[in-house]
């Protein structure tokens, strides 16, 4: 006769660890399964970790968690072949405690975070894959792991398995699976570079960090973004693009990253660095329309498994944590009345709907569909913008009115005024 748990959590990423930490802290008997050697071993993020949502789980975490730099400057670079148009924001307000965001390595952060859950009383079982759910009369009553004598029973199973949501699909919550237009593929390198070099190249002082998101030629015009983030003594450099486009254009992500690293504007930032690590991962980009049903009898789904990623704002870990927290609250309440059926767990859905998670995802619900079918937004406009800037900054005795006319001519030669108006209108509709 095997023992029974109050909560079984599958996956020790930010979502699963949050739930396990909070339920264990509330005194519920919690077991947390992770297939990696240790939590975070295979997890990938740019990665910018946000202070406020993390602090909603562990107050003052930033005083002891393994973090790299606190972010004081965020940039957007719109790249063309040989040029860039930049926008950015730098503030002293984010240079002081308790800070706004941090760059992190997930292999270190997740490990630390999971240790907190263990200290709170959760049982962490690593190197163990959960392969299936155990059903009893339309109720999920436990999980099957890949180990001998591997069945475990519990009142509720939390699926925090990340983007590769096999169990969510097996639970019948994501009937059609995922398609390539709902997934981005991202690759990233960690490039070691002297602290002093990082600080001088990015205009930073000790401890301060900067981020750059890049579009346009950074993804060879595909729908996606690239990023360069500063760590203590390395840079995280990566690029992600919609899987459907990568497949259609037959460009492998590796080539994209090489293209980015060798871009004449990017290369000087990386000069002299040594690649230490190479990582790849999927990102759920389906948004609101791809969200599965997030609960059923004895099950809730949190984090990436539930598609909670806002690609436009580079938010994922925060949604993972807050959804994990809302799930924990629901479970703690359900535990009090001893009911874990759909009705009891549907409170999780209600909490989500009232939170920024569903509100934000709903706001952008048509964005990825729009961009995915309008490639030129990521290829044509960045290039036009750069050409306009070129015209504007070249002093060559041409009257300004003439320059404006030339820019207009350049733009309309590529796309008619009507089409541009339509792009703006539609873009505004999906983003605004």
């Amino acid at each position, binding site marked *: 006769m095997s023992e029974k748990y109050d909560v079984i959590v599958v996956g020790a990423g930010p979502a699963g660890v949050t739930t396990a930490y909070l339920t264990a802290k509330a005194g519920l008997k919690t077991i947390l399964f992770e297939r990696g050697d240790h939590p975070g071993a295979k997890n990938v993020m740019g990665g910018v970790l946000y202070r406020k949502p993390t602090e909603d789980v562990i107050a003052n975490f930033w005083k002891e968690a393994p973090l790299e730099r606190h972010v004081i400057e965020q940039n957007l670079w719109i790249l063309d072949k040989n040029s860039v148009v930049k926008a950015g924001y730098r503030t002293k307000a984010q240079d002081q405690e308790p800070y706004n965001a941090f760059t992190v390595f997930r292999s270190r952060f997740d490990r630390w975070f999971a240790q907190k859950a263990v200290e709170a009383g959760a*049982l962490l*079982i690593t190197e163990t894959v959960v392969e299936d759910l155990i059903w009893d009369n339309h109720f999920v009553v436990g999980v099957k792991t890949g*180990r001998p004598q591997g069945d475990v029973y519990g009142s509720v199973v939390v699926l925090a398995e990340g983007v590769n949501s096999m169990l969510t699909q097996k639970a019948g919550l994501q009937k059609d699976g995922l398609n390539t237009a709902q997934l981005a593929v991202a690759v990233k390198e960690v490039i070691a570079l002297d602290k002093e070099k990082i600080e001088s190249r990015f205009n930073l002082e000790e401890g301060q960090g900067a981020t750059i998101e890049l579009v346009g030629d950074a993804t060879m015009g595909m729908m996606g973004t690239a990023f360069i983030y500063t760590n203590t003594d390395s840079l995280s450099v990566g690029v992600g693009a919609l899987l459907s486009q990568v497949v259609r254009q037959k460009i492998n992500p590796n080539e994209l990253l090489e293209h980015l690293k060798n871009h004449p504007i990017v290369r000087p930032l990386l000069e002299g660095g040594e690649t230490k690590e190479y990582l790849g991962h999927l990102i759920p980009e389906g948004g609101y329309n791809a969200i599965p049903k997030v609960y059923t009898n004895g099950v809730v789904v949190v984090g990436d498994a539930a598609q909670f990623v806002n690609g436009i704002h580079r938010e994922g870990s925060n949604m993972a944590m807050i959804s994990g927290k809302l799930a924990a609250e629901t479970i703690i309440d359900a535990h009090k009345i001893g009911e874990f059926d759909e009705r009891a767990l549907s409170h999780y859905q209600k909490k989500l709907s009232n939170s920024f998670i569903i509100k934000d995802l709903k706001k952008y619900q048509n964005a990825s569909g729009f961009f995915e079918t309008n490639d030129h937004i990521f290829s044509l406009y960045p290039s036009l913008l750069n050409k306009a800037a070129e015209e504007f900054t070249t002093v060559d005795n041409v009257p300004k009115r003439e320059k404006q006319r030339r820019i207009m001519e350049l733009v309309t030669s590529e796309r008619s005024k009507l089409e541009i108006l339509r792009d703006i209108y539609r873009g505004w509709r999906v983003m605004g």
Partner: protein
Amino acid sequence: MHFVVCVKQVPDSSEVRVDPETNTLIREGVPSIINPYDAHAVEEAVRLKEKYGGKVTVISMGPPQAEEVIRKSIQFGADEGILLSDRKFAGSDTLATSYVLTQGIKKLAEREPFDLIFCGKQAIDGDTAQVGPGIAARLKIPQLTYVLNIEEINVEEKTIKLHRKLEGMREVISAKLPALLTVVQDLNELRYAPLPNMIRAARYRPQVWTTENIEVEDDKIGLNGSPTAVRKIFAPPEREGGEIIPGGQENPEETARKLVERLLKEEIIADK
């Protein structure tokens, strides 16, 4: 039967590099694992326990985080684990380490006498292969190194029959128990730990013994008790030269013949 296994936490060698300038090992940020030979030692002890009955106790000397290797051993099926951990042990060489482990085992034996002690052939971070034999010498029990296969234990007569791996041959040998074995990796295949063991290991908190708990003399432990001085560690020079016999793509048979001729000429292979 009481099986005692000595285990050590080591840096994952597949990730350790030698600093070319200072000739020291770069251990920073490298994950720790159970010494691979020791894992096989635990596995063998657990198999013997399953066959002959009894108990497996693992013992390790190391910093507090070496608790991890004890938990790993519990996953494989060990029953109990003891961590010998004290600041005063820091800096121990093989002489001091074998002393501390011996004292720990003696203390353990007061409670439960042992029949067989296992060690790995060597630890992959130092490659000395001295600690196991050191313990056997201190305990004045037979030592059987490079054990490849345990044929049988005679529980009544307290004897063991086993195979040792020697260069180009095997030695089949019997010994009286208690004895100490050092094992090679070919001895067995590590099991995929069943879930109940994983859960037990996750909950397990090993006993920690310090200089308060075991009887040790101060001048035999830590740096004081360690006469060994490491002069230099260096990566062996890359092998030079080599010769590529061209033409393999176009004419494999002819090229293979040329290769064999060369090997014969250099007396690397023998002509029949």
